[in-house]
């Protein structure tokens, strides 16, 4: 989700050492009724922008951009409502970042895309040199830090730009730290498309308070702007037979912070759905309350912009050989309205059988309208949306390439 944020709307920093548990969800009102939604679609073969009308009923298609490029993430900067960053590579060429200052009318390539450092002389041979295969995740920083962005890559690396995405610097305290490298494992340990550093989250109250996640390698938190990180894995389960105390065995798929209550985060993990309420360090597996026949395995995690008790997931088949398809070929989102105590199936309008697609971790999002609009893209190239928080779904684009990421942005 990417909304336009004004500086005046942000809270003063308060969290880093002792997060304040102050529920705000009932006091935050939708301010987006006059704003239009742009849905940003990143695919295996390019990017598309779908411009919605005020009612979110008709959509103007803008694209393809970068036809033939693998676009892993396309994000509009909510701080200015104009700047777009696209994480790109092709089947043959190395990775790069493209930037647009006019919502995609024109693009310019980053001068220095994310890249790992060369090993220092005499570096530990157990830490071989690495090259970025692709940038996977892009996060605009805090409203009070214009032009600052974070990027997560595959192999796992964390990068920061302070000039709007033109030049990127590595976080050596993560990328070259022997402990983190051990937790990251090797390519052999990774997800099929390579190990990912993802879910880079900036606390809206404090730009120095950061989270990120690694598949695999757990969830991590910094309260000093990224100078140091601590792990945040207590309560998270791992595959049976492995030691949950070992960070390397943890595989978070997607972590989201609730904008209306930044002390609450939800997580879709390889081993279930979780919630955490800071300052507690304990994740709680709320996915155990999902229907047993569906389970709580999946990739995306979506939170409500104004109600921290509401979140959505899109379960997939994670049994046996991990088909990564909708369970029984019957796709559905599930919503909780009470922080995970109960879940409700949302499948009206979706195929009722023989639909063997699923939704990747970055491919489901929400807008900030009231009622909230939900959007997801499928591995079969369909883009679906709901104007009523998931009660009814409508397909708004089909025959696109495999969809890797979907973001919504609100503009005037």
């Amino acid at each position: 989700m990417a909304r336009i944020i004004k500086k005046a709307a942000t809270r003063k920093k308060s969290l880093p050492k002792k997060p304040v548990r102050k529920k705000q969800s009932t006091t935050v009102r939708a301010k987006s009724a006059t704003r239009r939604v742009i849905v940003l679609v990143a695919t295996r073969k390019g990017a598309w922008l779908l411009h919605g009308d005020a009612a979110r009923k008709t959509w103007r298609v803008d694209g393809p951009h970068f036809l033939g490029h693998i676009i892993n993430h396309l994000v509009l900067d909510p701080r200015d409502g104009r700047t777009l960053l696209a994480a790109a590579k092709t089947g043959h060429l190395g990775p790069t970042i493209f930037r647009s200052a006019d919502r995609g009318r024109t693009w310019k390539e980053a001068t220095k895309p994310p890249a790992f450092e060369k090993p220092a002389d005499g570096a530990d041979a157990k830490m071989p040199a690495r090259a970025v295969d692709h940038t996977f995740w892009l996060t605009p920083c805090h409203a009070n830090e214009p032009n600052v962005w974070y990027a997560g890559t595959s192999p796992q690396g964390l990068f920061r730009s302070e000039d709007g995405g033109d030049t990127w610097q590595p976080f050596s305290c993560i990328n070259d730290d022997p402990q983190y490298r051990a937790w990251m494992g090797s390519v052999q340990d990774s997800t099929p498309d390579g190990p990912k550093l993802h879910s880079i989250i900036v606390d809206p109250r404090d730009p120095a308070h950061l989270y990120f996640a690694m598949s695999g390698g757990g969830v991590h938190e910094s309260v000093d702007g990224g100078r140091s990180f601590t792990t945040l894995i207590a309560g998270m389960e791992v595959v049976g037979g492995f030691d949950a105390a070992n960070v390397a065995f943890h595989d978070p798929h997607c972590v989201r912070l609730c904008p209306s209550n930044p002390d609450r985060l939800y997580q879709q993990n390889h081993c279930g759905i979780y919630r955490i309420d800071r300052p507690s360090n304990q994740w709680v597996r709320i996915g155990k309350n999902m229907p047993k026949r569906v389970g709580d395995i999946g990739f995306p995690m979506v939170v409500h912009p104004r109600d921290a008790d509401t979140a959505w997931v899109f379960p997939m088949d994670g049994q046996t050989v991990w088909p990564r398809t909708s369970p029984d070929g019957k796709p559905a989102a599930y919503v909780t309205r009470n922080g995970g105590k109960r879940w409700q199936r949302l499948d009206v309008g979706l195929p009722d059988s023989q639909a063997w697609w699923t939704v990747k971790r970055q491919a489901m999002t929400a807008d900030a309208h009231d009622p909230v609009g939900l959007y997801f893209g499928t591995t079969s190239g369909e883009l679906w949306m709901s104007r009523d928080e998931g009660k009814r779904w409508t397909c708004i684009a089909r025959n696109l390439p495999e969809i890797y990421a979907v973001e919504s942005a609100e503009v005037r």
Partner: protein
Amino acid sequence: MKVLIPSPLLSYTGKSEVDASGATLTELLADLDHQYPGLRFRVINEQDQIRPHMRFFINGEQVFDLAHPLRTTDAVYLVQALSGG
């Protein structure tokens, strides 16, 4: 010297054959990147390794060493390797 450019890099050069100079492949790539900013990183990674699907041919012979010496009369082909269906 003449350098043949593969189609994935035409967005940088605008043409399939360009002039560039250098006493080695490393220097040649530096000159190409000077003329066409960003081109080198799409071909050579941050560890100075040729990316998996890119190949260099000099006067018809494949070359893997970026320190390979060049003469002004050499013909350099930068090729997108055939890989996958």
